């Protein structure tokens, strides 16, 4: 009996020591001063880095060349989330298929919905395509709160960066001046870049394009371009022969030559449409990191606008 008691006591002591070690190790790690930020996409990571500078550590869950609707909720992301002080997400149900289970499973109270470290960036941005009629799945995978691809407008980038700077100042009040100064610098550089981008896009204002998915409303609106249709018959529904034929006829009729495709979609249908219409497929990047050289938000727009202007010039 004594032996059994001893064994139980030792086992209890072992479990207690293990638990204590685990908790204290993690507590020490948390004491580091940098704000640990996890973002759902690379663009939000970019904004957070811009305003957070060396006072933050930022990691993105999705890669820039990945479809942000269909990220897998891998356990390795839990390792990032469980230590985060701040989670920044796109919202508007863009991440609904993968982020909620990660938040539930991560065991981090900081990033739970409504907690101080949960920041939905959509609250800062101008949102387009908010449905005004009955929404059903018959319309495809429609986002009932509006189009979540809102970061592709420099003005929204500025607003989101401002929102993040304010949140960072809330988390680390002594850094307010630093974050404000970083934001101001980002905003000024953005203003300069916008002049360049506007000038490059000026000759093509009013042009019509076809897109694969409805990823570009904010981008198109910013540069006065018009979306004439999508290759997907409805959001999230793969291309169908009937819809493709209709699209080709419409493009021929309206002399539309440029087709925008995200890097994660198959090019077979866009290429065949381009062949039929004498058009050009442009693999535009919706996110930072979509290609190796596109390492920040400025390079993202430089890259996309470069491709787009070349395509417009090549297909007069």
């Amino acid at each position, binding site marked *: 009996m004594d032996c059994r008691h001893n064994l139980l006591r030792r086992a209890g002591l072992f479990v207690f020591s293990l638990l204590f070690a*685990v908790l204290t*190790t*993690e507590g020490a790690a948390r004491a580091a001063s940098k704000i640990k930020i996890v973002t759902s996409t690379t663009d939000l990571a970019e904004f957070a880095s811009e305003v957070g500078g060396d006072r933050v550590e930022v990691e993105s869950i999705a*890669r820039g060349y*990945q*479809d942000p609707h269909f990220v*897998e*909720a*891998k*356990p*390795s992301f*839990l*390792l990032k989330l469980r230590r985060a002080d701040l989670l920044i997400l796109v*919202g*508007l*149900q863009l991440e*609904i*298929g993968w982020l*909620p*289970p990660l938040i*539930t*499973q*991560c*065991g*981090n109270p900081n990033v*739970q*919905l*409504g*907690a101080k470290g949960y920041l*939905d960036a*959509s*609250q*800062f*941005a*101008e*949102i*387009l*395509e*908010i*449905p*005004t009629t*009955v*929404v059903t*799945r018959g319309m495809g*995978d429609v986002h*009932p*709160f*509006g189009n979540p691809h809102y970061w592709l407008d420099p*003005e929204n980038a*500025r*607003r989101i960066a*401002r929102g993040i700077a304010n949140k960072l100042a809330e988390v680390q009040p002594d850094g307010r001046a630093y974050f404000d100064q970083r*934001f*101001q610098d980002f*905003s000024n550089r953005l*203003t300069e870049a916008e002049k360049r981008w506007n000038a490059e896009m000026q000759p093509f204002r009013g042009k019509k394009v076809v897109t694969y998915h409805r990823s570009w409303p904010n981008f198109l609106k910013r540069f006065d371009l018009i979306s004439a249709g999508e290759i997907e018959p409805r959001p*999230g529904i793969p291309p169908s022969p009937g819809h493709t034929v209709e699209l080709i006829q419409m493009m021929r009729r309206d002399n539309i030559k440029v087709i925008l495709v995200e*890097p*994660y979609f*198959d090019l077979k249908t866009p290429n065949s449409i381009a062949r039929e219409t004498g058009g050009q497929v442009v693999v535009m990047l919706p996110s930072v990191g979509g290609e190796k050289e596109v390492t920040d938000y400025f390079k993202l727009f430089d890259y996309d606008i470069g491709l787009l202007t070349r395509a417009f010039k090549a297909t007069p």
Partner: protein
Amino acid sequence: MRRLVFLSCMLLLGSGFLFGQDGDPTQERLKALEERIATLEAEVKTLKANQPAGPPEAEAATSVPVSAPAAAPEAAAQAATVATSTTPTPLPVYGGASAAAKILNPDISVIGDFLGAVGRDPNRSVPTLEMHESEVGFQAIIDPYARGDFFLTFGQEGVDLEEGYLTFTSLPGGFVAKVGKMRSAFGVVNTLHNHILPWTDRPLVTEHLVGGEDGINDAGLSVARILPAPKDIFLEATAQVFRGDSGSVFQATRRGDVLTVGHLRAYRDLTESTNLDLGVSWARGHNDVGTGFRTQLFGADATLRWKPLRRAIYHNFLFRNEFVWSRRDQLDSTQRAFGFYTAADYRLTRRWTVGGRYDRSGQADMASLTDSGFSPVITYWPSEFSQIRGQYRFTHYADGRSGNDLLFQFLFVLGAHGAHPF
């Protein structure tokens, strides 16, 4: 603000003009003025960024949708945040004038599982056509500390609470606890609802050793925590205590006949597209022979996944193996049975998936009787929210008889069904 900027600009231009009247309009001064205007423009943009975003003019007037499926609580809360903190836009609530009250309702979903069969199987009878299961889900965040998930199933034999549990998400120390009725964390397949399975049925090893379709599914408590591990390795331990009643596998006759389940999971990304997921499980409880007669289950699982990130919706591959050892006390002896399945699935295109499974398992109460079989499976996805599946199932039973089934299944999702864990 615009007026202020306009006045500033006019003042600057005006002063420039006056200087011009003096007869000294130098290029430098004009340049300085231009720079000043540019600076003011930048300041205006910055100030605009500090202000909340207004809705686009077109949408602002008509941005109240009439009706929509129940939205996720996260999204609902997001919408509330948007409306209160940034825009004068009315809350985007759905369903008419009384919708403001409904916005706090849980997400509601219904999943239909229609099953049909042709062929002959002497031991497993599947009706020619049946509405095999209708799963109704209610999911919501309860308060800042917990969320609730309920799944009711309507089948051929009536209504059952498949799962109904509370998850505490904000516990200190990184713990995640669940309380309620839930599928236990034993292995992989046992944790999955029918509509998540890549087959129309469950493997033989599940049917023989782990409680069949319902599996180890009981009322209890669960605590999970991510453990410290070498860099980039995800290690999670789960400990669960249940009442002790799970179909034919475990049965409690006294209050103390609880069932305990433990699971250890190790996961690592091998590359950005490939990952390896390993698990070991253990379950111990009393069986239907009577008090003092125990069943112990040991499980091991290994899953290799490949999904190229740039083409994730078109191609992926999954290779999964699960092994179960059962040790069951009976009146005359202790039966030690073993079973496993090995399965693979490959997504050919955005809409087509093919796969197959090999099964082999002894029977829990008579370990010497081993059944085996295989199943090729093909699935068509009209959209994310529906699947049409066909499965040929061959089973060779220990008594020498064979089963040849052609099973087909229609799965469809209505409403907002929350995403499942990976």
